[in-house]
């Protein structure tokens, strides 16, 4: 298996550093610092201590007995990233990047956020380490994820509402990049997913890989073998890459990337299923775009998936057919949320509910001896209002 990315930050055709010259020196410096930290025992020790004592890792791998019974097929396990401090996997990454920022002597963190989970996770580590923090969030998202807006403010972060373009995650990332271009000397840009210019896709994957490493250990302890299927939702793809990465070389383990099918053709956020190779936010990857190369408007009820691109490494593994891409529509995701709530007493984030919804289709087709792991990447409290409105509007 090739070591990815290569030294230029490419995953085959994908990845790279497609940014303004102003940012190139900062990216090269970040790469250099990260390469040192990767093998630095103090850095690794600090990271492990924070994972254990602050995030609350390892997170459990819960056997979903009633869900397994209800679906009537494979055994279903849940990787419980919803139990991480702040309620989602995002903090695995922000803790790591905050340690890098500290080492680089930066004073200020900035972040983009869609669902608000990455914004909250960045505001949290900013408070923990004493950085100032500004979070960019599309205006539409500030409305549909109001509880997270309040959490970020309570944590001392400044919220920067983005009113340009579609007012969602893509535009928040544009604005964060513009801010970084202007304040690159003292600002660290905490990218929330495995997208963006090199070295971000690599370092976010590495920080999130703790999910897959723990899962591997836990499933072997419980079942004495590796699972047959891993299922994760994909917007930018950090919870998926985090779960998948340690299993890539285990070719018997099937991997399913569940993209946001929105409300159907032309109104979705499924970059790998429906997009074309392109360049967005610093890397080459699958992008939803029109025939002239303009980035398409996306839709998903789950703000964290409502993004026209995807991490370049996922594009690469998708081309290699190492992972399979499927889509789940808004209404199915809401059903997935309800299913997990009713059978297991766990209300997943709408994003993670996409993975649950796909499991509901896949699991009944599998034999009882098969093992499926769903990544429950976050908890659903933030979504209650928008799900209530959705059910109301659709008379469900």
């Amino acid at each position, binding site marked *: 298996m090739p070591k990815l990315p290569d030294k230029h930050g490419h995953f085959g055709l994908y990845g790279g550093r*497609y940014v303004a010259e102003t940012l190139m020196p900062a990216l090269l410096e970040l790469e250099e610092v990260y390469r040192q930290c990767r093998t630095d025992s103090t850095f690794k020790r600090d990271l492990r201590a924070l994972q254990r004592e602050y995030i609350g890792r390892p997170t459990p791998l819960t056997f979903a007995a009633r869900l397994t019974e209800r679906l009537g097929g494979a055994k279903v396990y849940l990787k419980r990233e919803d139990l991480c401090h702040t309620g989602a996997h995002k903090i695995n990454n922000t803790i790591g990047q905050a340690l890098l920022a500290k080492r680089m002597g930066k004073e200020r963190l900035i972040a983009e956020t869609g669902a608000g989970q990455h914004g909250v996770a960045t505001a949290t580590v900013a408070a923990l380490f004493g950085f100032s923090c500004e979070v960019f969030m599309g205006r539409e998202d500030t409305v549909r994820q109001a509880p997270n807006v309040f959490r970020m403010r309570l944590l001392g972060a400044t919220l920067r509402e983005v009113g340009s373009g579609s007012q969602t995650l893509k535009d928040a990332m544009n604005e964060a990049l513009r801010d970084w271009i202007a304040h*690159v000397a003292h600002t660290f840009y905490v990218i929330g997913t495995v997208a963006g210019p090199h070295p971000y896709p690599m370092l976010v994957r590495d920080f999130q890989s703790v999910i897959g490493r723990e899962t591997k250990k836990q499933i072997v302890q419980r079942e004495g073998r590796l699972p047959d299927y891993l299922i994760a939702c994909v917007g930018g793809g950090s919870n998926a890459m985090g779960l998948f990465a340690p299993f890539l070389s285990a070719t018997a383990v099937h991997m399913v990337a569940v993209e946001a099918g929105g409300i159907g053709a032309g109104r979705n956020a499924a970059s790998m299923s429906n997009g074309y190779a392109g360049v967005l936010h610093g890397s080459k990857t699958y992008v939803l775009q029109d025939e002239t*190369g303009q980035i398409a408007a996306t839709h998903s009820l789950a703000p964290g998936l409502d993004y026209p691109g995807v991490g370049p490494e996922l594009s690469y593994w998708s081309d290699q057919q190492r992972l399979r891409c499927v889509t789940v529509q808004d209404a199915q995701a809401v059903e997935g949320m309800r299913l997990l709530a009713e059978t297991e007493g766990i209300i997943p984030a709408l994003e993670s509910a996409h993975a649950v919804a796909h499991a509901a289709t896949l699991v009944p087709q599998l034999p009882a001896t098969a093992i499926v792991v769903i990544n429950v990447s976050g908890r659903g409290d933030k979504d209650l209002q928008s799900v209530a409105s959705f059910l109301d509007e659709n008379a469900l």
Partner: protein
Amino acid sequence: MTRIADTFAQLRARGEVGLIPFITAGDPDIETTFALVHEMARQGADIIELGVPFSDPMADGPTLQRAAERALQHGTSLAHVFELVRRVRRSLTIPILLFGYYNPIWRYGGERFAADARQAGVDGVLCVDLPPEEAEELKRETDRHDLDMIFLLAPTSSLDRAQRVLTRARGFIYYVAVTGVTGVRTTLPADLSDMVRRIRAISPVPVGVGFGISSSEHVAQVAGMADAAIVGSAISQVIEQSLGQPDLVARVGALVAELKTALRSIAAATRNHTGTASSSRS
């Protein structure tokens, strides 16, 4: 010699500093852009920088974001820009440089882009999100079709990095005056002149300065240090303020004339002061 290099050679021979105005193609519509290119050339522009609109312009401030939005409202694409340049070429020889982001070019296809750009009469291309590290594939095509691929240097570029970028430079090097995105500024950085001199001392090609260059005063400052001044947002602001007005083209023309006058007066002053302006060039 390409038309861009030729223009800089002529400017130097006259002891002048070039003026490169930027407008977004299709803002507010292609016909107005056609008229603006002619008017700006008439009022003293030396090279025209034509923006190819992109939906997600991450290096642009609000003024040029809105310009791109206006152009995209009626679907201005690369094909339209080539058609525009083809029409302009029936009457004008002024060098035309396309300024944009990589995705529309990538989607169009690098080889096809370079061939069609050359055929339409484009002289150079600047891709703001395509640093030299990622540019090789497209540069092979632009070199093959004798288009100048213009690279940028920024205040954050080390001298060592600048040296490496300069080895690939053709046409001119675009020095980004401010650590930030495009947009009108009230003042320019205090160390701009030192930074530009540093680059110019080692550059095999002329140096143009852009980003934040907003007024006659700024242009005059740039004239003392570089080979060309690039003005974008200040012009787009005039376009935006004149939308729907019959004198939109004339107002832009007046601004370009004012900027050119400021450059010429500095050039003249420098000539009187030091003999010839070009003698100060390394």
